[in-house]
C-alpha cells in the first residue's frame, strides 16, 4: 500500500475541466441514455424517474438521480483478507496493488516459450502474489485453459482462495455470481460472516458505448445485494468504441461507470461500488487494444481524479505492456504505468505484472520485477522527511568543508531508514557482476521467482474448509455443465 499524504497527487484537470466533464456526462446520460439489457434493471431505472423505452431498452437517467447515487455510495470500502493483517481499506489517497485475471497464455522467460496457461500456473501466480510485499490484493493473473471451459472462472477463484490470505478479486465472466459468492462464503464461514469480512470482490464491465449487458448487470445487482465490493468499469477504445478525442472518451467512460453506480445504489443504498475505467486506444495499424500507450496512462490519471472528486473509491490499471516478451519495452511500459497509477492516487491498481501482449500473455517474472519497481515507486512517493535531525545542520557543521560523512554516527543511524535498497536491480561492480554469471534482469527475476515459489508456503485453509470448498466447486460444476467433469 502506498499512501503519500505529503506529496501532491499527479492531477491533470483543473476545477473547470472537471466541471465541464461532469456536466457533459450528465447531458449524455439524460439526453442519449444507456441501453440496459436486463429488464429488472430497466424497471428499477424507470421507478426512480428515468425515462425508459422498454422496447429499445434505453434508459435516460436524469441528473438528480445520477448525483443522488453518487451521494449514496460507500465512501470507504473495507476489503478483507482471510487474516485481519491482510485487510485493506479503499479510501482517500491509499493506493493498493494486485495482479489481474485474463491472460490465456504464459511466457516462460527462461525458454522463451509461450504456451496456454494452466490451473497450476494460476496457483503459482497466486502464491507469488501472496509472498510479494508490495501486493495488497490478489487476482488470479491467468485464466486456466486446462479445466472445463464454461466453469473456468470457478477454478480461477478456487486457486486464489486456497493460496492467499490477501483479499481476492475475480472477473465476472457472466456466470451467475452466486456461484462465486458461495465459494467465498465457505472460506468466510457463511454468507453472514462474508458480509462482515468481505474477502471477495468482483470485477465487471459494461459494453461500450453505453450498454449494460444482461448477465453483467444481474451480477452487479447480486453483488450489491450481497454487500460485497464491486468494480464496474468500462473498457472502451478510442476510435472504435469511444470518440477519438480524449475528453470525449473520458465523458463516455464516466457516463458508463456512473450509470452502473446508479443501478448499484438503487439496488442497495450504500453499495460498495468501485469507480473507474480501463479506457485505451484501438491501435490504428493493428487494431489491438493497447495496454501500454500514453493515452491509456492519461485516461488512468483522468479517471482517478474524477473518482476522487466524486468521493468514490477508485480502480485503475498498471504494470502491463504491449510487448510480446519481457524486454526493455515491457519493463518501461509496466514501470511507467505503475508510477502513473501510484501517483494518480487510485485505490486499487490491478493487472500489476500480469499483462504482456496487451493482456493476452502473463509472466511470473514480470510480477516479480513489478514488485521491485513498486517498492522503488513507493520510496519516491514517500518524499523527504524534514525535521531538525534530518536537516543535519549540526553534522554538516561537524564535518565541515572537505571532510566526509562515512563514519558519522548520523550516517549509520539513518542509512537504513532513509534509503531504498534494491532487491533485484543490479548495482554490482562490473567484475563481480561478471564473476556472478553476468546475469541480466530477466535471469535474476527468474531465479528470484523460483526461490520465492519454493520457499513460500501460503497459510492453508483449515482441512474442513478445504473439503467444503471442494464440494461446493464440484456441485457448481455439475449444475453448470450438467455433468461431473473428469478430474
Amino acid at each position, binding site marked *: 500500500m502506498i499512501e503519500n499524504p505529503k506529496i501532491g497527487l499527479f492531477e491533470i484537470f483543473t476545477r473547470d475541466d472537471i466541471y465541464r466533464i461532469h456536466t457533459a456526462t450528465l447531458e449524455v446520460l439524460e439526453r442519449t441514455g444507456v441501453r440496459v439489457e436486463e429488464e429488472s434493471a430497466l424497471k428499477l431505472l424507470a421507478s426512480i424517474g428515468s425515462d425508459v423505452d422498454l422496447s429499445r431498452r434505453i434508459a435516460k437517467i436524469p441528473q438528480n438521480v445520477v448525483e443522488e447515487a453518487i451521494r449514496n455510495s460507500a465512501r470507504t470500502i473495507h476489503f478483507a483478507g482471510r487474516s485481519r493483517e491482510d485487510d485493506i481499506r479503499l479510501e482517500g489517497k491509499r493506493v493498493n496493488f494486485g495482479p489481474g485475471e485474463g491472460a*490465456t497464455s504464459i511466457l516462460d522467460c527462461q525458454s522463451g516459450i509461450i504456451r*496456454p496457461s494452466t490451473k497450476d500456473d494460476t496457483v503459482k501466480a497466486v502464491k507469488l502474489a501472496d509472498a510479494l510485499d508490495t501486493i495488497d490484493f490478489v487476482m488470479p493473473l491467468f*485464466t486456466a*485453459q486446462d479445466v472445463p*471451459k*464454461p466453469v*473456468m*472462472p470457478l477454478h480461477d477463484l478456487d486457486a486464489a482462495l486456497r493460496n492467499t490470505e490477501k483479499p481476492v478479486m475475480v472477473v465476472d*465472466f*457472466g*456466470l451467475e455470481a452466486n456461484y462465486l459468492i458461495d465459494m467465498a462464503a465457505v472460506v468466510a464461514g457463511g454468507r453472514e460472516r462474508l458480509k462482515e469480512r468481505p474477502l471477495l470482490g468482483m470485477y465487471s464491465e459494461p*459494453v461500450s458505448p453505453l450498454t449494460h*449487458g444482461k448477465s453483467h448487470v444481474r451480477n452487479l445487482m447480486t453483488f450489491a445485494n450481497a454487500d460485497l465490493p464491486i468494480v464496474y468499469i468500462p473498457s472502451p*477504445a478510442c*476510435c*472504435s*468504441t469511444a470518440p*477519438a478525442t480524449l475528453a470525449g472518451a473520458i465523458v463516455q467512460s464516466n457516463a458508463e461507470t456512473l450509470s452502473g453506480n446508479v443501478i448499484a445504489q438503487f439496488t442497495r443504498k450504500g453499495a460498495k461500488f468501485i469507480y473507474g475505467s480501463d479506457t485505451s486506444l*484501438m*491501435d*490504428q*495499424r*493493428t*487494431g489491438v*487494444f493497447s495496454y501500454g500507450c500514453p493515452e491509456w496512462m492519461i485516461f488512468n490519471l483522468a479517471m482517478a481524479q474524477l473518482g476522487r472528486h466524486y468521493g468514490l473509491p477508485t480502480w485503475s490499471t498498471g504494470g502491463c505492456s504491449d510487448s510480446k516478451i519481457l524486454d526493455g519495452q515491457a519493463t518501461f511500459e509496466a514501470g511507467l504505468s505503475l508510477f502513473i497509477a501510484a501517483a494518480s492516487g487510485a485505490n486499487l491498481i490491478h493487472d500489476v505484472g500480469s499483462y504482456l501482449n496487451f493482456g*493476452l500473455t502473463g509472466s511470473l517474472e514480470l510480477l516479480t520485477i513489478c514488485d521491485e519497481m513498486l517498492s522503488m515507486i513507493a520510496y519516491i512517493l514517500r518524499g523527504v522527511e524534514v525535521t531538525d535531525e534530518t536537516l543535519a545542520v549540526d553534522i554538516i557543521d561537524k564535518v565541515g568543508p572537505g571532510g566526509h560523512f562515512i563514519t558519522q554516527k548520523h550516517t549509520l543511524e539513518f542509512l537504513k531508514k532513509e534509503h531504498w535498497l534494491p532487491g533485484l536491480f543490479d548495482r554490482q561492480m562490473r567484475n563481480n557482476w561478471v564473476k556472478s554469471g553476468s546475469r541480466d534482469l530477466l535471469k535474476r527475476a527468474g531465479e528470484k521467482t523460483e526461490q520465492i515459489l519454493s520457499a513460500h508456503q501460503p497459510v492453508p485453509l483449515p482441512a474442513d474448509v478445504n473439503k467444503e470448498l471442494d464440494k461446493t466447486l464440484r456441485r457448481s460444476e455439475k449444475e453448470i455443465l450438467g455433468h461431473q467433469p473428469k478430474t
Partner: protein
Amino acid sequence: MREALHAFDQERLVEATERALEQGYSPQDLLEGLTEGLREVGDRFEKGELFLAELVAAGEAAKKVIAEYLKPMLEGGGEGEPLGHIVIGTVAGDIHDIGKGIVGMMLFTAGFEVKDLGVDVPAEMFVQAVREEKPDVIAMSALLTTTLPMQRETIEALEKSGLRNTVKVIVGGSPVTSEWADEIGADGYAEDAVGAVKLVKEILGIRE
C-alpha cells in the same frame, strides 16, 4: 469514384456513383471498379499505409453503394460474382465485436460477400444462416475462454442438421489456437484479419 473511396468519404462516393451512372457507365463496370479499388485499400492497409478507421470507412462507403445502387440494378443479370459468400459472427455469450468486424471488413475489401450476424450469435442462428444463405464459409469469432465451447457446439449443430459438409468453418479470436481448431473439427484458424483472408482463399482454392 476511386478518389472518393480513397478519401474514405461516403457522401462523395455516393455522388460519384450517381454521376457515373448518369454518364452511362454500366453498374457492372462500376462494381468491378469499386471491387478493384477496395482491393487497393486493403493492400494499402496491409502495408501499413492506411489506418484502420480509414479502411473501415472506405469499406462502409463501398458497402452502401453496392447494396443501395449497384446490387439492385444488377439483380438477375449481373456478372462479376464475389469471390465467395461468408457468414461471420461472434459466438453465443460473447459480445466482443471489434476484431470480428475487422475480419469481416478485410474479407469484404478482398472481394467476398460478407453477412455479419453480429455478436452473441447462438448455434441455431448460424445453422439457419447456412440453410438460408448457403454461404461458402462460416467464420466464428470468440474472445473468451468461457465461450470457446460455443464454436464446438456450433460445429456440432451443423453436423446434426446435416449441413456440415455444405460449408467450410473457420474460427478465430485471441484464445483460439490451431490445436483448438483441429480439436473441434474446424477447417482452419487465422490469427488476424489478414490471415483470415489468406485462409479463406486457401480453403476455397482461390488463387491470389
